[in-house]
């Protein structure tokens, strides 16, 4: 078995909770390797006794699943109402401008993946962003520009396995 296969097998077989389902297995794979490769879909189908179609149906429903290897860094920008009222749109515009991209997605060099989020759960600190899964509140256009610059110039949690 190659490394990826092993990681997928370990992730879906070492789930902590007693109830193992298609969704719980997909979440475990994503937690372990940051995306859902075709092979994971096949393994999850085999383990849970479902068809590949059934597994794809679940994987394609939840927007947190991605199907390409992760970028080095993940940046999530919240646009929920609390953040919106305190300037999330300006924060998002600044981040897009600093990255030179037009919207959600991966940068061409695979360095950073940008996602919008509908609520990061720290509304009292709005506007909130999450950089490599670290919450950061009270953002401003200047702060988020500095954060993007720092991310782009440093190795990230997924720097080993970039596509």
């Amino acid at each position, binding site marked *: 078995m190659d490394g990826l296969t092993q990681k997928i097998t370990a992730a879906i077989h070492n789930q902590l*909770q007693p109830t193992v389902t298609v969704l719980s297995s997909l*979440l475990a794979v994503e937690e372990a390797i940051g995306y859902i490769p075709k092979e994971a879909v096949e393994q999850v189908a085999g383990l849970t006794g479902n068809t590949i179609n059934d597994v794809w149906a679940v994987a394609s429903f939840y*927007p947190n699943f991605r199907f390409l290897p992760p970028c080095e860094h993940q940046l999530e920008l919240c646009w929920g*109402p*609390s953040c919106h009222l305190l300037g999330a749109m300006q924060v998002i515009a600044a981040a897009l401008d600093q990255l030179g991209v037009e919207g959600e997605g991966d940068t061409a060099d695979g360095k950073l993946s940008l996602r919008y989020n*509908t*609520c990061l759960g720290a509304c*009292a*600190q709005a506007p909130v962003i999450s950089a490599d899964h670290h919450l950061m509140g009270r953002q401003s256009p200047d702060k988020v520009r500095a954060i993007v610059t720092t991310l782009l110039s440093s190795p990230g949690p997924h720097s080993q396995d970039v596509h």
Partner: protein
Amino acid sequence: MNFADLVAEADRRWKSLTDGETPWIRVGAALCGKAAGCDAVLAALESSLQRHGVAARISEVGCLGPCFAEPLVDVQLPGGSRVIYRNVTPESAEAIVAAHVVQGTPVPGLALGYLGESSIGGIPPLVEHPMKARETRIALRNAGNIDPGDIYQYIANGGYQALNQSLTTMTAAEMLAQVNASGLRGRGGAAFATGTKWNFLAGSREPVKYVLCNCEEGDPGAFNDKGILESDPHTVVEGIILAGYATGASNGYIFIRHGHDGPVDRARNAVRQAYELGLLGQNILGSDYSFDLEVALTGDSYVSGEETALMESIEGKRSMPRYRPPFPAQVGLFGQPTNINNVKTLAYVPEIVARGGAWFSSIGHGRSTGTAILCLSGPLNYTGMVEVPMGLNLSEVLYEVAGGVRDGKNLKLVQTGGPLGGVLGVDNIDLALDFEVFRDAGAILGSGGIIAADEDTCIVDLTRALIAFCQYESCGKCFPCRMGMSHLLEVLERICRLEGECGDLELMRSVGLNMQAGSLCGHGQLGFNPVSSAIKYFGPEFDAHILERRCPTGTCLGAKFSPKLTRR
């Protein structure tokens, strides 16, 4: 270990924390603390203590409530009162260690208040802070006070007493009677009587029955479910076991979205500890009652929080609502009878059992007994999480508890009960916190999220943002919701661009009525609320956009950036 031994051990450990040899430093490390930068403060505290060669115990605690003042650092010298320091930075953390921990001299200039019996010169009592003065803490009684990672701290503060009392002195029916007497109603949004719901499940004789705790809190502006789960997970676990005992359920799940690491880790850890001490599993505390509990995660999906979609998600499928009937109490999770309660609802249960249903129903307003757990966000002076008695006036909440709007601006509107709850204009906030009063005013008290907006807010732009959320989060099962949300968004975007047409408000109304009539769950049924309430209170502002081609606040014009939101 029997329960009395557990309590004795917990008391011994608690005494060594508060009256031991070393100071105890509690740092607010819930989602709000994390977002405010508590990790850097924790590191600074540790290195500073080391440099001074002073021993102190540092604990990461949950949310004390005043999130606006995060990161909060709470220093308690042995046997003394607690001093809560506000907006702590790595630099001020060093100063606090040098003065308060090393020298024993508190720093009034950095403090928000003190908590405890002995007063501290120059520092006001925290209970007199506007955000704390109106509070009655039941579900939040331990939040910010105990280490949520330590089951013994929960037990030392009265935890699992209600469970022990129920298992040893009460029948399931007697316990259920207390919940019925309390008048407790669901805090997830629908405000259905909890005891009645439990009666349905208790009446079923199936051997496998489920109790589900819903922490899929997708409402932007609401963070109290996650706040309770990560601040005091054991009060939720105890509430679930008690719900299981009252209804004769065999299994339970705590349901929460993946990726919220704090609440997820706290919940998993709490379940593991409860098993280790015999509070979960076979023959709980030596009784003949057995109950199993686990944590189930879901993906990003707002509709997962709807009770039938939630069950689909636990079963590992797309979280789309089911047809009803059959209702969950008859055919629920994995086809078995199931009861679903919100985190907040369950968090009240231990205190209701310990202190009696009559005590709980003596607090509150009319049929809305107990407290409201509110999340205050938007441009308010004091943002955060508070627990106040039902019946308190919404305008008092906004102008006193939350300290009014920042920068001396005027309040324009509030948005309550999540995106589907609609908005209330500033002239209509003289409302008691009460499910019926809110309903009659055309709003929803719901899960307790209260988002304020100031005079600079354009109502059309805010409505567009709310509908953008609803459109993004429609699961797609019912086409009136799926297509209707997209249609509403298209029209609102047009109005924002000052390209609206004369019939647009009427067009949105007809789309909204179809969504209401043709959708399976609240997402589509209530999805027109943000638009209808906005038109009700701010009709002239819509007219200005459509008829006069101008935005009165000047904040929704094309110059303002609007992201393109995508969903696969």
